[in-house]
């Protein structure tokens, strides 16, 4: 399956501005198993790409390729015109919320600080001037996500929503050229999902930082999504929501009858092997 559908909007943007991420003729295979082949994807500044698909379809593998942690079987990938090296400063990464141990020796500001320079060698800025600059950057990143009130609180004491706000700050503090999000809303309550999605959206609007958003659940970000990359079992489609999230396209991808229903402002997918669009309870 090599159909590549681009939104007219994105196509013109791609022609006029240089793309931040380009994936060309990408193939990823583990032995006999092909996750995807002939994948072409140009992501332009300010674009929001949702990556959907069942477990094992290669969503996370795609993120690992963009992060430079995995090599493509064939094809090339460029971030800011260069192959992504390990530990690239050009990429901000937001993981899913995880349970933290109570004795974790980190405060909120330390998590953000690690996002700034935790990958660097040496003891960090030692002079008072350099330390002040570092502190100011961390404070600014926390203010941006409304985390100033608990900046010095032990990380493990914070709620899942508060932790994910800090994850956004941790990813943004290094001023990345692209944001990669791996299920950042999973296991958050609805209010926190909205807040975290909005914080990512604000950065996209103000700085034009494109977003690659891996998710099981498109509805919390549905109004933000420019294009969908839908991966199923070696097949994929790329295009605007209304072109990809249809009964015809998904039925073809899954190779079985799948119905896509629009219920008010939500999309409901019925019949996919593993239903990708489950609704989270507030406490899940």
């Amino acid at each position: 399956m090599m159909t590549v559908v681009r939104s007219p909007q994105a196509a013109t943007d791609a022609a006029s501005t240089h793309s931040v991420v380009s994936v060309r003729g990408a193939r990823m295979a583990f032995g006999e198993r092909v996750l995807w082949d002939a994948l072409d994807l140009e992501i332009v500044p300010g674009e929001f790409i949702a990556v959907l698909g069942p477990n094992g379809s290669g969503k996370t593998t795609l993120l690992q390729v963009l992060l430079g942690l995995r090599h493509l079987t064939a094809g090339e990938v460029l971030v800011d015109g260069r192959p992504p090296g390990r530990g690239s400063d050009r990429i901000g990464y937001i993981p899913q919320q995880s349970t933290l141990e109570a004795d974790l020796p980190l405060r909120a500001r330390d998590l953000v600080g690690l996002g700034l320079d935790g990958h660097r060698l040496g003891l960090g800025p030692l002079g008072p001037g350099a330390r002040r600059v570092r502190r100011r950057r961390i404070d600014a990143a926390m203010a941006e996500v409304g985390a100033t009130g608990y900046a010095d609180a032990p990380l493990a004491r914070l709620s899942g929503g508060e932790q994910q706000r800090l994850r956004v700050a941790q990813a943004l503090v290094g001023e990345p050229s692209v944001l990669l999000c791996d299920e950042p809303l999973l296991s958050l309550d609805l209010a926190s999902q909205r807040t975290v999605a909005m914080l990512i959206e604000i950065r996209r609007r103000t700085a034009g930082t494109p977003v690659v958003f891996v998710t099981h659940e498109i509805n919390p970000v549905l109004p933000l999504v420019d294009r969908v990359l839908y991966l199923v079992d070696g097949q994929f489609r790329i295009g605007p929501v209304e072109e990809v999230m249809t009964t015809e396209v998904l039925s073809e991808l899954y190779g079985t009858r799948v119905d896509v229903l629009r219920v008010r402002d939500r999309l409901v997918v019925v019949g996919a092997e593993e239903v990708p669009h489950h609704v989270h309870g507030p406490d899940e």
Partner: protein
Amino acid sequence: MNDIFDRLVSFDGTGELLTLPFVQRALIAAAVLGLVAGLLAPLVVARGMAFAVHGTSELAFTGGAAALVLGIEVGLGAVLGSVLAALVFGLLGLRQRERDSVIGVVLAFGLGLGVLLLALYDGRASNKFGLLTGSIVSVDSTNLWVLAACATVVVGTLVVWYRPLLFASTDPGVAAARGVPVRLLSSLFAVLIGLTTALAVPAVGAVLVLAVMITPGAAAARVSASPLAGTVIAVVVAEVALLGGTVLSLGPGLPISGYVAAIVFLCYLVCRLIGRVRAG
């Protein structure tokens, strides 16, 4: 009852003993050990490696016992044993349950081997006992250059790698995404633990290495979540316990380890209390 207390706490001749070179060397060794153990303890706690440290110390015991039998430097045998064990544990998968069972298996084997080796050794009995519970004589017999070399390697590595180590220990997913070599650091950290454990075995004995490698970190975590403050607290706790324990053990002439373990446990209780009061 009072008799036992008098036997345990006595300063008879403590002042005199403190002037002796072998006691002073033991105090220097204790201070160096307190520094490196205190620096590592918060990371050990953050990584959930208490059991791995225990396993490593039992293998340091095995290495030391083998050295006794072979007639080579005991400290060197301990370093070899613990670094080897630490490397094996460092390479183990990240899944906690699997790691736990493998450590248990290796630990039991190492301990059994060590007991057998000690039985084969027909030298001084205090040498045997020293490996298990530590003693001021065995601290003194630690080759000073082994001590200095181990401490230099640990501190030097931390100066260069501390930030990525903290990142990988507390936030491995994002650290990997930022290109931090998480698996490599796992092995590197294991070697640091191995070296420090080998330093700790002569002083507190294989059985009580946890007292200086875990408890200071666990105590600090109760008081502060700041990595810097936590490390400072852990170093202070480790120093108080090791130096205090060494001095207290002089008068009664009993093993250092009991005193170190008691002091460090007291520090832990105090830190818990402070944490409880602060949390309100």
